[in-house]
């Protein structure tokens, strides 16, 4: 484990190394070196299995964090390669030539976050949604509740109660309300 982490630190300037548990670790490399690092891990270090690819939206920092999770079937080590890309100009080098399943992940990320992967096959096609015209729905500035209210016909009369408060009012109407209303729903 430490061996491979040392190597990737030296070779690709990996920062922010997190050892999650015995056989799972994450490293962050720069955007330009990320695909190089993944290729090197696949071809020279035995990380031949591509587990998944995902994205986290750091809206406040103006960044998307991409994660390539790889697995080495011999040493049974999982290694996640993270990289940050710009949120405004969200273009990332495509990794479709390394594994075929990356095509699908990249299509999904393109639809959900609007990240472009130039050269990736079938990237223009719809993934799950058909004819989506709004901003990509997994970006955090997209307000799903507002969109739903504006698009679909909400049925009037829908109210939400805090269960604790509501039960106390129903069962002991004469006593003052002591149950604290949670702040997550207004």
């Amino acid at each position, binding site marked *: 484990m430490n061996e491979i982490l040392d190597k990737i630190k030296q070779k690709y300037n990996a920062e922010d190394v997190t050892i999650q548990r015995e056989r799972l670790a994450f490293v962050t490399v720069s955007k330009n070196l990320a695909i190089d690092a993944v290729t090197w891990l696949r071809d020279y270090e035995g990380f031949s299995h591509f587990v998944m690819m995902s994205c986290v939206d750091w809206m406040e920092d103006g960044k998307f964090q991409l994660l390539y999770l790889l697995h080495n079937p011999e040493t049974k080590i999982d290694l996640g390669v993270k990289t940050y890309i710009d949120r405004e100009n969200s273009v990332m080098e495509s990794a479709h030539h390394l594994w075929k399943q990356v095509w699908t992940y990249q299509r999904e990320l393109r639809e959900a976050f609007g990240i472009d992967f130039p050269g990736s096959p079938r990237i223009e096609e719809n993934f799950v*949604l058909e004819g989506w015209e709004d901003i990509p729905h997994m970006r955090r500035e997209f307000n*799903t509740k507002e969109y*739903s209210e504006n*698009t*679909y016909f*909400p049925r009037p009369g829908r109210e939400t109660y805090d269960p604790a408060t509501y039960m106390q009012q129903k069962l002991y109407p004469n006593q003052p309300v002591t149950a604290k209303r949670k702040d997550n729903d207004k």
Partner: protein
Amino acid sequence: MSEKDMNSKVNEMLARSEANVKNSGKKFVRPEDEEREVVAPDGSIIKVNPIYDYFSGARPEEEKPRNGIVEKFLNWARAESIWVLGFGTGCGSIEIPPLVTPRFDMFRFGVQMRPTPRQSNAFIISGYLSVKTLKRVIRTYEQMPSPKYVLALGSCTINGGMYYDSYSTINRLDHYIPVDVYIAGCMPRPEALLAGFAKLKELIKAGKAEKANEYARNFDWYKANQKKIVKDWNMPDYNW
């Protein structure tokens, strides 16, 4: 939100949707479905429009019930022979297979599953309905022969249920296709579904289950609602 606010909002939405329908154009029609000219084997040039050549795009028409005792007898037959389309649209479709098992056995009540919309007269919308599925549901619903009935299963079809704020699932089913019977719950048990069938039978026998005619009557309203959210409308307006 009050009822009045909601109504004004709905009207506003409808106005927007009409504009949307007008300028939606042929953006989402696939190249093989476009209207074009092709050369026939004998050398002549013919015009093809695949969307309208293969499907009838004619509007549905209201069909009056027959008179008196004939219609009563037919309604009784319809009520005792409900053929359900085997199309699971959401999580509730897992509640349908138990109905054919010994424990619930819907065959006792003359309810059976049919594999094709042409031969079925009841449609169970089982739970949440995403926009993508709604498009298929509309096509399937329109292919079913009239008189046809819709059972809406679960709270998601009533007001969106737990997916009321989702960007991809609809909130009120009755704005897109007419619903005969709602079966509330999340999820309703198979017993509730059987109760729903019993209610549907009552309605049919009383001659009140004429929602297919209502769909034909309010066709424009339903189409406007459907086209508002199905953005890639690459099929005929009415397809059967």
